[in-house]
């Protein structure tokens, strides 16, 4: 357990001051006590007893599964989760003599319990910083917001918010609305809810949107906006020992687990930013990324760097070239081709340690601005006299995908070819051709089409699983730091990562495509 106290690392202090001001200042004080000596280390072995882990109820969904997994793996250690509403838990812990580990989100609990002298000095571990987001129902027609000010607009009649007194979430939410200058405008719409009910209320549609911590996200909701740091202080998630907690093997095992890559990935996937990794200075990750995914990948890398301190170095080329590079160089950490096809090849060659679909490409029809040829669906493309563009069948993902798409729609690829005047080596070239009027229409990926909206329109048509193309992100077996690479994968799946993909026109949920077909 040497070097277990992050506060002693200058780098993490720097992080703390960047992300958690002014609450961070208080936490830094608490963390600073660690210099006096570490109780985690000092205590002797003692008999295994159940280790209690206290947390506010809104954190429970996040930790339940991993801690259950921990108990399953280490049957000799019993972990008991004690989840209470924030204020109730504060009262209970401040008054009683309970021992165990407290996981707190934000500074509210820490400060009051520290004042009550209930925390073991120097025992705090910073787990992650979690920003707040605006959550809407997953299926909601509401588009992703570019600014918190949108909450003041007519689209939102009822906005769920946590009470200021209930804890850090409420306090930071209020601060964000103030800083955005919409407090007075939004105030009449606010529905004050207990923090643990914010998400459920949004999912049910009781409110149009809720302001909640990203880690609270569930499948039924999505983050329409991640509130930027300039408007609030992301909540610092901290694990700390209650005073007089025996530093026995059980406690130690749990705290170790809380600092493990597994929990880090959970926190990352929940939208958290991790303190600088507590391991020897990691090299950077090398990321082979399909060139068409560059814009999203650039942002993903920047945000991942902010969230974890891990540097990722991308190289962008055609997915096939990248596969050749991986094959020959036998190095690198991550691979994100534009098409499943290439991932399958990489898997077949045994290059992939682990992979997940991070976004989807959905085919759409790109037409000239204003749709001058009145194209409203795939069947219109067969009208005589149209000048069509398609992706080259053998070298582009969209080109290879087009026959599959037509087959699924029971249309003839050969018949379509009669109208094709050009086939393109890359999807962007095709987008450009539509924009410049070289072709009347083209079958294109939604994300690529979205880049050309200044000079072209998009006609979407209904799709099903057979007519969408998943984009996988994989961790390479050559990775010299698979844990870090895996973190990147998890990050891509986090609300932050997904928001980035959506921002760049990628559909992260096939049921909620970037372009909706007109019904």
């Amino acid at each position, binding site marked *: 357990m040497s070097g277990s106290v992050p506060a002693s690392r200058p780098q993490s202090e720097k992080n703390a001051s960047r992300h958690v001001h002014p609450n961070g200042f208080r936490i830094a004080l608490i963390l600073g006590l660690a210099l006096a000596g570490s109780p985690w280390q000092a205590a002797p072995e003692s008999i295994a007893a159940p280790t209690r882990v206290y947390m506010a109820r809104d954190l429970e969904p996040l930790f339940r599964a991993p801690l259950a997994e921990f108990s399953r793996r280490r049957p000799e250690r019993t972990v008991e989760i004690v989840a209470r509403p924030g204020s109730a838990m504060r009262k209970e812990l401040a008054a009683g003599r309970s021992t165990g580990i407290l996981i707190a989100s934000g500074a509210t609990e820490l400060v009051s319990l520290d004042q009550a002298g209930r925390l073991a000095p120097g025992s705090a571990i910073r787990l992650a910083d979690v920003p707040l987001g605006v959550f809407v129902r997953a299926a909601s027609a509401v588009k992703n917001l570019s600014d918190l000010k949108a909450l003041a607009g007519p689209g939102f009649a009822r906005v769920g918010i946590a009470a200021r007194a209930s804890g850090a979430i409420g306090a930071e939410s209020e601060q964000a609305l103030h800083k955005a200058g919409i407090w007075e405008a939004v105030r009449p719409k606010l529905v004050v809810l207990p923090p643990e009910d914010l998400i459920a209320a949004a999912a049910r549609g009781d409110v149009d949107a809720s302001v909640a911590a990203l880690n609270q996200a569930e499948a039924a909701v999505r983050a329409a906006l991640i509130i930027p740091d300039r408007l609030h202080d992301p909540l610092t998630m901290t694990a700390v020992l209650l005073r007089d907690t025996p530093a026995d093997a059980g406690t130690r095992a749990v705290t170790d687990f809380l600092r493990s890559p597994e929990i880090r990935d959970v926190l990352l996937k929940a939208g958290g930013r991790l303190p600088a990794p507590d391991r020897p200075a990691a090299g950077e990750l090398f990321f082979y990324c399909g060139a068409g995914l*560059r814009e999203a990948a*650039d942002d993903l890398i920047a945000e991942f760097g902010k969230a974890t301190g891990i540097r990722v170095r991308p190289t*962008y080329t055609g997915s096939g070239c990248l596969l*050749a590079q991986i094959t*020959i160089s*036998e190095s690198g950490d991550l691979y994100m081709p534009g098409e499943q096809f290439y991932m399958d090849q990489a898997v077949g060659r045994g290059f992939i340690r682990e992979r997940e679909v991070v976004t989807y490409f959905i085919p759409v029809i790109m037409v000239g601005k204003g749709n001058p040829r009145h194209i409203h669906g795939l069947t219109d493309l067969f009208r005589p006299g149209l000048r069509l563009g398609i992706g080259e069948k053998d070298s582009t993902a969209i080109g290879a995908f087009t026959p599959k798409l037509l087959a699924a729609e029971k249309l003839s690829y050969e018949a379509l070819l009669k109208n094709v005047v050009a086939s393109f080596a890359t999807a*962007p070239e095709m987008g450009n051709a539509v924009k410049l009027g070289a072709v009347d229409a083209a079958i294109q990926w939604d994300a690529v089409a979205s880049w050309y909206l200044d000079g072209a329109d998009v006609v979407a048509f209904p799709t099903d699983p057979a007519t969408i193309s998943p984009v996988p992100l994989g961790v390479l077996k050559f990775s010299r730091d698979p844990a870090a690479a895996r973190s990147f994968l998890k990050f891509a799946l986090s609300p932050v990562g997904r928001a980035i993909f959506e921002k760049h026109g990628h559909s992260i949920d096939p049921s909620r495509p970037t372009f909706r077909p007109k019904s």
Partner: protein
Amino acid sequence: MSRDRDSGRSSRLRAVLGGFLFFYLGFIVLVILANVLWLGRPGAGGGPSPWTFLWSRPDLRAGLWSSIRLSLVASTITSCLAIVLAVPSAYALSRFRFRGAAVIDTIIDLPIVVPPLLAGVALLIFFRQFPVGRFIEQHIVPVVYTRTGIVVAQFFVASAFSIRAVKAAFDGVNPRFEMVARSLGDGPFRAFRRVALPLARNGIVAGFVMTWARAMGEFGPIMMLAGATPGKTDVLSVSAFLNMSSGHVEASIAIVVLMIGLAAGALIVFKKLGGKGYLW
């Protein structure tokens, strides 16, 4: 062209030859012009022109500056290395008759023949799958996916131009000049330095310029060997490709136009500097 006082017949010849030249020039100039004008056209919906748009984005501008610097520095390093290698090699090829000279001559041209992207693949195989390359990579200097890789890739495909041009220059220097210098007391190295080298200077400058130009435009092998990493290995050509493949056609065209301007400027400077005081 202005010097000959020509009769009607040769002026007709001049018109015909000039016609060919101007057809070619006109083609190039019009293509460049088309691109420049396209950049300057008003944006969709009365927005700013692509050029203005690009210029107003500090992030794109910063990226562009770093690409320009990288391109200029890498191409210049490559060309210097190529010339340092080419001068002795080309001199040897030009002056010494030896068995297998034709084979060597052919080998030198091979990198020009290989399609650029595959030249990159070839280099990647050398540095990652071949013991010699692996040794270099591990113990001397890491090449794959580094900035060093840019220079290596450029060097591989472009240095043959230096050797070619410099060899042609040495071929054009009568060996008797050096013999005279030696009869006047110069040793072989001194004769080389004082006679062959200055007499081949135009060719050496030409070799440098050709290598530089080719290195500037190089893209495929760099992408394969050095990677296309923004801010690290994105020389202008790679940057143009990256912009193209993320839908920023305007940015890539702007880069192309910029490259043409930069290259024209640099070539003029090189030629002026190199050819200075060498009128004969």
